[in-house]
């Protein structure tokens, strides 16, 4: 085995491990931000991503995404890996990406979706919806790739699409009971466990270095270190901006906004991390941090209930990040070079992926509503999904149990 392949294998496998570890981050973040009575349920959903999602993508999705191109729309047959990267390492890394896309949804539909409906959604997303979108930008000869679209690690392909799927499913399943009052005002449902959520945010930030830098799929890529630095500074400016805006607008340094600002900065820099300079990464992150605070408010205004802010982080941040490549790309960006072509292509991507995500999720939701049902019963919602669907509450201080 050549030295080059060996190093690439090590690099891609370790990066994939980091990406897969992000599932733990999603799980903790969401378990911390929902109410106690549904903390087991969101955790279990992320395990569904890690099990059913992995199998669905490995058995079906990866071929659709990375097989030989069929009409620029989907792939077929064995996945085609870049040169000098073992194919299986490539597949492993892509598995991590696919289930990340699915995990974005889990938080947005938390506290009211049926477990069985979620399992089906994850299987469909990992086997079909995400792979098609991935093929367009990343597959050999995908139609958007051919147009010159740039999305290094998936602001559009994963986050914008995932964020708009989160939006679609959140709309489809409806808000949690009593979330909105008749007069349109919002009831605050307090997050159950902030330190747990913050642990999740740190794990996500940690894994993101593998997510972005690993997307080189090539240890010899001279941009590798720069990508990692861009990732970290965008996270920093995203969090800093979000917390400052939040203090100005709402007086407090809201931990959920600090975390979501960091994550939003990460989401936004994901598309451009290999194409933009460090100062641009700082700007992209900061803008994403501002955006996440406002986007959180929009959802409330639209009466869509997204318990963890998945849309504000991934949807809004992803669209902004995709666009930002058109502005800041060092060789083709509008602001850096005056060229407008790339920006137009990126704009197209900003329509295609959100639409694809939103429409497919509404469609899947429509079918689910008419078949197995998408939403737990009002009684279950009131009691919490944990006991009903999983047999056990998240926290048990009192030993109140006897065998039947």
């Amino acid at each position, binding site marked *: 085995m050549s030295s080059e392949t060996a190093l690439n294998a090590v690099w891609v496998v370790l990066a994939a491990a980091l990406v897969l570890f992000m599932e733990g981050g999603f799980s903790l973040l969401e378990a911390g931000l929902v109410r106690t009575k549904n903390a087991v349920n969101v955790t279990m959903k992320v395990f569904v991503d890690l099990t059913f999602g992995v199998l669905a993508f490995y058995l079906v999705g990866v071929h659709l995404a990375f097989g030989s191109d069929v009409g620029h729309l989907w792939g077929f047959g064995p996945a085609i890996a870049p040169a000098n990267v073992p194919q299986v390492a490539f597949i492993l890394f892509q598995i991590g990406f696919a289930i990340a896309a699915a995990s974005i949804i889990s938080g947005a539909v938390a506290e009211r979706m049926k477990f069985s409906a979620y399992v089906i959604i994850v299987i469909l997303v990992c086997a079909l919806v995400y792979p098609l979108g991935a093929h367009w930008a990343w597959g050999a000869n995908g139609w958007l790739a051919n147009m010159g679209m740039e999305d290094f690690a998936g602001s559009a392909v994963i986050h914008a699409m995932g964020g708009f799927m989160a939006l679609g499913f959140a709309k489809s399943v409806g808000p949690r009971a009593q979330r909105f009052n008749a007069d349109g005002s919002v009831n605050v449902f307090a997050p159950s466990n902030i330190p747990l959520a913050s642990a999740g945010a740190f794990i996500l930030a940690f894994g993101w270095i593998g997510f972005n830098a690993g997307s080189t799929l090539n240890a010899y890529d001279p941009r590798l270190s720069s990508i990692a630095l861009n990732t970290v500074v965008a996270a920093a400016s995203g969090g800093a901006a979000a917390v400052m805006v939040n203090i100005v607008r709402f007086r407090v340094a809201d931990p959920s906004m600090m975390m979501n600002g960091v994550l939003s900065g990460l989401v936004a820099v994901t598309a451009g991390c290999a194409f933009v300079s460090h100062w641009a990464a700082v700007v992209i992150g900061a803008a994403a941090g501002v955006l996440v605070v406002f986007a959180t408010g929009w959802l409330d205004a639209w009466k869509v209930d997204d318990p963890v802010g998945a849309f504000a982080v991934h949807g809004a941040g992803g669209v902004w990040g995709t666009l930002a490549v058109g502005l800041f790309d060092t060789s083709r960006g509008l602001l850096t070079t005056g060229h407008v072509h790339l920006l137009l292509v990126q704009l197209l991507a900003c329509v295609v992926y959100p639409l694809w995500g939103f429409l497919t999720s509404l469609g899947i939701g429509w079918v689910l509503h008419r078949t197995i049902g998408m939403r737990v019963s009002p009684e279950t919602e*009131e009691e919490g999904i944990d*006991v009903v669907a999983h*047999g*056990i509450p998240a926290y048990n201080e*009192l030993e*109140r149990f*006897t065998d*039947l």
Partner: protein
Amino acid sequence: MKRIDAIIRPEKLQTTIKALRQVGVTGFTVIPVQGRGQQKDAVGVYRGHAYDINLHPKIKLEIVVSDKYVPATVQAIIGAAQTGKMGDGKIFVYDILEAYNIRTGEIDETIDELNQKREDT
């Protein structure tokens, strides 16, 4: 002066507090409890063993009011906390002999009878 212990569903706490405020009751104490009554047991399952979740999360409100406020308070709670399903809870009323306000170190002035008594003396 009476104490009213109301055991209600957790999700009815905020509407009950609003209802209490409307009838002029502004002081009370809230305790999360576990209760058992006519409500059907839930059944949990852990590692293959079914177990009886024979206690349901409830909220207990402890409210001390003047005698004459008791009926209104009880009605306010019933109005706000009722769903008509098993597990709505109970209200118990009993006598309180004395009440002190720790801040003033004296007999509590927020309760009518005591106010009366203080003025009398």
